[in-house]
């Protein structure tokens, strides 16, 4: 049976997608294989290029991947590390040395001097393989504790829609509102705007994208929403 006739498509759980193709390593969570046929395991879009199958899930939780930038919430700290909620089934571990940038000495350093419970952080997933909790790192440019702005939480599966093709959607929001936006791969979005009204407008735009992610004409709707809201609030 060869069902790999189309290159792109939509599949529901249990639909055969293709036979005798290789699965992209990032897509193995969304498909399964019986004999040589690959079946979809979640509602998804798929794309086959050069005999490699890539799957974009339309629903689902965030599964950490090394290298992803995420926005986490510090929920606890123990003697050597913080525990960070990263909106995923697995809790993030932030080792003290990954904050201090030097070896950590429990006798000298107090963790709560650096990050408190309830702090939001922008972090990168350093390591993760599902048998152990993901290890985070906040060293680097534009990373670390968030001190201002607003956090908006959406479904992680809607993140690609907020970013858009070649960041098109994100750039529309950024340019129309003059806000700084960091989209975490885990569905948390940090927004910093010149004023509170613009922050609210960005929140409304992002919530609209989350709600109408699969309906046509989304870009135009977002543009209209931002323009209308700005007009109503007297920002134009």
């Amino acid at each position, binding site marked *: 049976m060869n069902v790999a006739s189309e290159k792109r498509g*939509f599949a*529901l*759980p*249990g*639909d055969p997608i293709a036979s005798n193709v290789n699965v992209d390593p990032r897509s193995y*969570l*969304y498909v*399964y294989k*019986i004999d040589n046929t690959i*079946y979809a*395991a*979640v*509602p998804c*879009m798929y794309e086959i290029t050069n005999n490699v199958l890539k799957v974009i*899930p*339309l*629903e*689902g*939780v965030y599964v950490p991947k090394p290298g992803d930038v995420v926005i986490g919430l510090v929920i606890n700290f123990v003697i050597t590390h913080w525990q960070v909620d990263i909106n995923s*089934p*697995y*809790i993030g571990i932030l080792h003290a040395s990954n904050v201090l940038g030097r070896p950590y000495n429990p006798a000298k350093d107090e963790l709560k001097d650096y990050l408190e419970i309830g702090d939001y952080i922008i972090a990168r997933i350093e390591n993760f393989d*599902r*048998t152990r909790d993901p290890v985070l790192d906040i060293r680097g440019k534009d990373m670390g504790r968030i001190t201002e702005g607003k956090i908006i939480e959406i479904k992680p*599966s809607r993140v690609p829609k907020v970013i858009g093709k070649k960041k098109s959607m994100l750039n529309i929001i950024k340019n129309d509102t003059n806000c700084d936006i960091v989209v975490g791969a885990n569905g948390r979005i940090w927004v910093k705007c010149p004023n509170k009204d613009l922050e609210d407008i960005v929140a409304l735009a992002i919530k609209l994208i989350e709600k109408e992610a*699969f*309906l*046509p004409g989304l870009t135009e709707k977002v543009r209209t929403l931002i323009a209308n809201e700005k007009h109503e609030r007297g920002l134009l």
Partner: protein
Amino acid sequence: MSGKKPPFPLLKDGKRHDGRGPMDLRPIQMKVGILHNADGSAWVKMGRTEVIAAAYGPREPPMKAMILPDRAVIRFRYHMAPFSTDERKSPAPSRREIELSKVIREALEATILTHLFPRTVIDVFAEVIQADGGTRTAAITAASLALADAGIPMKGLIAGVAVGKVEGQLVLDIDQVEDEYGEADMPVAAIVGLRKIVLLQLNGVLKPDEFLKALSMAWEGLKRIYELERSVLGSKYKGV
């Protein structure tokens, strides 16, 4: 299956008491994404039987003691609302509800790819809003839709339907009256796409040839329910 005589004929001129033929399903309605707070949810109405299901997860387990190192734990609760029946039902889980929760959980374990999310838990709740026979099959159908809506990886959608024996004749998708006064009730649930049965119970007596016929009738019903499930789920993504 009380053994009592029905108050009115269950089968008359080849038609059942509600006017359906032996192979007719009750009118079915389904919706997905009806609950805001759940990761995935579904509502299934088969005739007068109504079930809401909600799926959560994979998420961090509430107790570390319950985790499994190699796969996700599935918890399923089948529950009938106190107002779902003629006489008020006590909201405490009954023996029947505990048993149904177990068999449906085992049916769901056959379709969910639990090995993909070790050390997590997947919760599914099915609440019977109105009971008129076939609640377990409606619950498993709703649970399967809720799981798909939550994006929990699964081998395929499950559909469920019951076949009964009424006045000596096999009939598809029995309701409360046919269940109560009929001679047999056989709920079947399957991953239709893979042709795999995940739940099969039989209450009453069927001869071997009747059993085989009942199973093939159930398949016909399951295929129709499965198509409906697919179209309901697919319509959510019609813009992609």
